[in-house]
């Protein structure tokens, strides 16, 4: 939900607009996850699976569109949907949806830093030594 707080109204118009944009981006992320969950056979994804290894055999078994996103993120390391979209030459919103889907599937982790959502493969913390 978009909430313009009373404090925000006291600030300059540019800051208010930035706050609205930030909220819209968060809302957009949530919408993409909700849309993903509405797809047939995705009800199980309501509870994200944790810690599935994103190894090469998993990459091979993925559908092409997700493999492209996952491969790109593997190469970059930690990235926003925007950065992944620059590599894959697909729209940011498309990459955002695919990245969120990979998070739900347990292959990626997502972390917010300020306005930006970063996606990454949590290689070091998965499994034992």
């Amino acid at each position, binding site marked *: 939900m978009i909430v313009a707080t009373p404090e925000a109204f006291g600030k300059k118009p540019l800051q208010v607009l930035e706050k609205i944009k930030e909220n819209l981006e968060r809302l957009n992320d949530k919408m993409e996850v909700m849309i993903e969950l509405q797809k047939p056979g995705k009800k199980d994804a309501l509870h994200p699976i944790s810690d599935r290894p994103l190894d090469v055999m998993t990459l091979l078994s993925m559908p092409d569109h997700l493999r492209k996103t996952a491969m790109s993120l593997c190469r970059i390391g930690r990235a926003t949907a925007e950065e992944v979209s620059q590599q894959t030459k697909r729209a940011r919103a498309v990459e955002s949806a695919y990245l969120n889907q990979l998070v739900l599937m347990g292959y990626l982790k997502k972390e917010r830093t300020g306005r930006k959502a970063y996606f990454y*493969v949590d290689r070091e913390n998965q499994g034992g030594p």
Partner: protein
Amino acid sequence: MGKIIAVHSYKGGTGKTLLSINLSAALAKHGKNVCLFDLDFRAPSLATLLRIEKAEHYLNDYLNNASDINNVLIDLSDRVGKKGKLFVGLANSGTEAIRDMSAKDRKWEMRALGRLLALRTSLLNDKNFDYLIFDTSPGLQYSSINAVVSADLVLVATTFDRSDVDGTRRMLRELYDLFEKKTEIVLNKVLDVSSKSSKDDIQAKLKDVYQVPLLGIVPCFCDILKAEGGTIFVEEKPDHPFTRIVNDMAENIDRLP
């Protein structure tokens, strides 16, 4: 920004290691800074072929997160003149190490992929290497697929052996295409390339079968067999026809975008 090249094949004995060593030496002689890695953990051979008695740290240690990559690298630059640098990272050929690498699980392989990908930053970006060359094990081994996924370019060493042709064709479609890998073929052990027409025939046939670019054709040289793996042709026989072919391949690779 430098490149990672994986040298791979469907079957064993196609000349991957011979190609990897000589290509690395040729690129270094052309002034490039090259690092050659033995990713054939099940049958390591670079140490023997390069006549390196012992290493303090192996690529196994780096992938096991037990050593920094800088401790793994061995400087062989004095063997290739003054223009470029040649370093090598060996695989541990001890039985215990081979058994250990064969028993790794998926999570370890996932982390190994991460560590191979990290070489792009630590060696290509920070240490200014121009090329990292991965000499892999044949077929669809985990370590080889990790190498292919990490690479910018895959060189596939192949022969006219029927099972090799069939397997290589399948591997190109079912592995490299899925990972959208830039691939070049090196056809090795060819019996008749004496005339231009026979060369053209081979090129046309390969284009039809594999539908990927051909980097080079290597005839079957008796000298290579006689050397029993003990000669680095680019280093020791600069005027040998095989050296000339490898030099051409190195120049072509260096021209690739």
